[in-house]
């Protein structure tokens, strides 16, 4: 304990101010570096207006992160069920409004602000699961796993009804991460894998819409429809491939500047990075992501209670799922699903949610001393 206290002491001396605001310097540096890259690339891909817009969103997100970092994990744990219930209620409202409006509905219009409840669930679901497992012996018993599964599937089902398959899958993944870290038995994982594989054909025939099926087919053979559904992925691969080792240079990407790459400032922004900064740029970005994730896992491992550990670990791993799904899609190894590149793609709500998530991580890390004492 003395050794531990002295290390804390060192932290406080070296990073006193940051520590006082409950911020983790390493995570903060990583995130700021990532956001700087994002602004640079958004400038090239979308122009100055987009960059300014995005800066403002980042500022909002950082503010959210700082605020949440101040909230000690025990409070987060306390609020978790309430947050989850509120989220579910809003999802139901959104779905009902969507049915009335005869179309997809993802937004809740509160008059002064439009809010996407599924974004809230990205944090609320892992929080609730971490809460659920926190006071139970781990590895969990089958009944608890089943109940946890139900808690995951409820919001996932509601979001899938909107329909927003991408977000539904990401939230399922975040719940799964908690299960995994809580000690999901291997046999069950295997069985679950087989179950999902068995479920896939049912999804294909009964849930997926034509355009979604088309995306999967196109993924398997993009050249079959070069001007239609395959266009995105073909042009994106051309952009990345033509970038080569060093890239064509900032603002020099012909694929992106001449608008051959669709959605180049949102979901396909990595194609711009690959084209203008080449393999080196891509690897630097991957390294940044890896650093943030590893730091997140480290924080989780350092956490001193089960709730913090599970939540922190799940958030870090979910972040990676985002990265992998987006880059896998843009580079053509996964089908096209509407998942942005976290903290890089232009777009507001997702960035704020993600930064709020990192606020949770920072809170977990910087409130340890209080917990131990």
């Amino acid at each position, binding site marked *: 304990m003395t050794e531990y206290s002295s290390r804390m002491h060192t932290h406080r001396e070296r990073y006193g101010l940051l520590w006082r605001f409950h911020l983790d310097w390493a995570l903060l540096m990583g995130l700021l570096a990532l956001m700087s890259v994002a602004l640079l690339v958004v400038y090239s891909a979308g122009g100055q207006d987009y960059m300014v817009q995005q800066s403002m969103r980042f500022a909002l997100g950082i503010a959210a992160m700082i605020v949440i970092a101040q909230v000690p994990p025990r409070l987060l744990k306390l609020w978790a069920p309430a947050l989850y219930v509120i989220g579910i209620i809003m999802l139901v409202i959104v779905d009902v409004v969507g049915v009335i409006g005869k179309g997809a509905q993802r937004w809740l219009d509160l008059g002064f602000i439009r809010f996407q409840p599924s974004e809230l669930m990205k944090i609320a679901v892992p929080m609730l699961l971490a809460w659920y497992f926190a006071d139970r012996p*781990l590895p969990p018993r089958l009944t608890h796993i089943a109940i946890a599964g139900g808690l995951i599937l409820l919001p996932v089902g509601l979001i899938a009804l909107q329909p927003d398959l991408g977000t539904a899958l990401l939230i399922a993944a975040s719940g799964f991460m908690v299960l995994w870290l809580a000690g999901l038995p291997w046999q069950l994982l295997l069985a679950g894998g087989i179950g999902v594989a068995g479920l896939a054909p049912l999804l294909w025939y009964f849930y997926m819409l034509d355009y979604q099926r088309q995306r999967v087919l196109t993924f398997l053979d993009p050249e079959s429809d070069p001007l239609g559904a395959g266009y995105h992925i073909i042009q994106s691969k051309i952009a990345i*491939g033509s*970038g080569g080792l060093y890239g064509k240079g900032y603002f020099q990407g012909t694929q992106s500047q*001449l608008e051959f790459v669709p959605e180049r400032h949102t979901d396909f922004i990595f194609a711009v990075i690959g084209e203008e900064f080449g*393999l080196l740029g891509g690897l630097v970005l991957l390294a940044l992501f890896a650093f943030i994730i590893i730091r997140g896992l480290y924080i989780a491992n350092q956490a001193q209670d*089960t709730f913090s*550990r599970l939540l922190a670990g799940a958030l870090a*791993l979910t972040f990676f799922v985002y990265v992998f799904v987006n*880059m896998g899609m843009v*580079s053509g190894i996964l089908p096209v699903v509407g998942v942005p590149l976290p903290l890089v793609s232009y777009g507001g709500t997702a960035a704020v949610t993600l930064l709020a998530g990192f606020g949770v991580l920072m809170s977990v890390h910087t409130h340890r001393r209080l917990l131990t004492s």
Partner: protein
Amino acid sequence: MNRRMRMKDPVAETSLFFVRATIAAGVVGLLTLVLATRLFYLQIVEHHQYRTLADRNRISVQPIAPTRGLIYDRNGVLLAENRSSFALEMIPAKVTDIAATLDQLASIVTITDDDRERFAAERKQHRRDQPVPIRSRLSDREVAVFASNQHRFPGVTLTGRLIRYYPFGPQLVHALGYVGRINDKEWEKLDQNNYAATQHIGKLGLEKHYEDVLHGAAGFQEVETDVHDRVVRVLNRVPPIPGRDLHLHLDSGLQMAALSALGDQRGVVIAVDPNTGGVLALVSAPGYDPNPFVTGIDRLSYQGLLESPDVPLYNRALLGVYPPGSTVKPVLALAGLNTGATTIERKIFDPGWFKLPGDDRRYRDWVLNKGLPAHGWLDVRFAISQSCDTYFYDLANRMGIDKLSEQMQRFGFGQLTGIDVDEEVRGLLPTREWKRRARKDAWYPGETISVGIGQGYWSATSLQLVNAAATLANGGVRRELRMVDSIGSLDNAQKVSAPLAAVQPEVASPAYLEVVRGGMRDVVMASNGTARKAFVGVNYDAAGKTGTAQVTSYGQNEKYDATKIDERFRDNALFIGFAPFDKPQIAVAVLVENVIGGGASNAAPIARRVMDHYLAQSREPNAKRDQEPAHD
């Protein structure tokens, strides 16, 4: 583990979490490696291929049409020029509802039913991604209205192009030909790179014959385009090489004089400089305006031209074959002298008709039709000046068809004159072999008799006649006829093959020529010459030969009365001639279709006016020719 025994074990949970987190980190590392490998594969292994694809995306090569060479007359008068004109075009592949688009267009720009029909027809001939013309020659107002509405019509473009324009219209169409839109058949035979941006090609006449010279070479530019096909910048440009200009021997003033001399009659007037073979005037009347053909003539107007009884589309100068009649008598006389069938001194007695030995059929001389006395005794020179049929019946009979045909070939009959346009035809110079092949019949001596006065099976083009006149004029040298004098830009015209090499350096000895030319001089200048009246009061010496050719045959004793038969069956009037006699500068052939009277009264006066015009102009020493041609 028993259910009751289970409770939280912080140490075990910490290590469980550590194991799980480590496995997760391993998976994260593995998947990151997968992404990195994927990037390496795309950006290093397949880089070259994707680089090429990216360039193909952004760089497109656009052809640039060269400017078509202009056509000038000998005095620098512009005969064929390029005028800028705006047209509406549609790329069908970019339009979803073509009919609706046309309807909307019609609300702001005039689009007739005919335009629609032509558009539909042209659409079938074009690829879907190629522009198809909707309307050409938009007015300034239409251009402005469309330009401000352009956003409503994706796939429809307003293009400014240089369009061929023929300021002389119908007056020179048969001399110049015209250009029209390239059709599928032509496109297959063309160098498609060189014509990638060109819409028009020479269809007829000079425009067709000199297509290679006039067209030039296409240029191209490599442009960077964005995904909407908008040009962002030009990367590389190879300018087109403009087509070269043609400078003709033709004298537009002389052409006008010939046209006005012909009046509203149907016929041909061709004038040639006998020293070079250069064509000074080439009239085929009536003509038609070629300008609508350039952009696509509407069906109704075209139908009108096709059905006109005057057949204006028919190029009589190049395609028209007519019995040459008496105009060929000087040439036949030379043939007779060449072959020994007659001599300069030999005289025969003309009773007004000719009979083959042992045959009762009388071949009548033209004097009988006019109720004039027979010619009596005459030699070859007098026979020419009097156009005595009997003398030439006898001459042809003595030569026989084989020698006659062989001699006429020396003068170019039955052959192309080699003029630099493609449509020229050979006409028909009958031979024994021809008759066996074409008519499956033997040659009869009686048939030679009518050939002897330029009738029978013999049909010739006006080009062959003027060529014969030029050959007689310049002392027996037969040259190829040429429209184009030189090729090049206005400043540095490069002479091409002029004066032209002789095809036949000598058709007869000077002595024979002198006699025959003398006979032709008498036709025009002597008090009893057949064309004397037409040349009363000329201030130069000229020579010529009249002709009146039947277009249909009559019974032996049938009386021909032009005023009583259908106009289409009336005789054709002909005249060939040259002037001045001693040092000829112009040779002329005139043909007037279906006249009352003959060559002397219908064709000779036209030839005279042409000669008058040309010689009056050249008497002011090189007045016009040395002037700097007017530039626009």
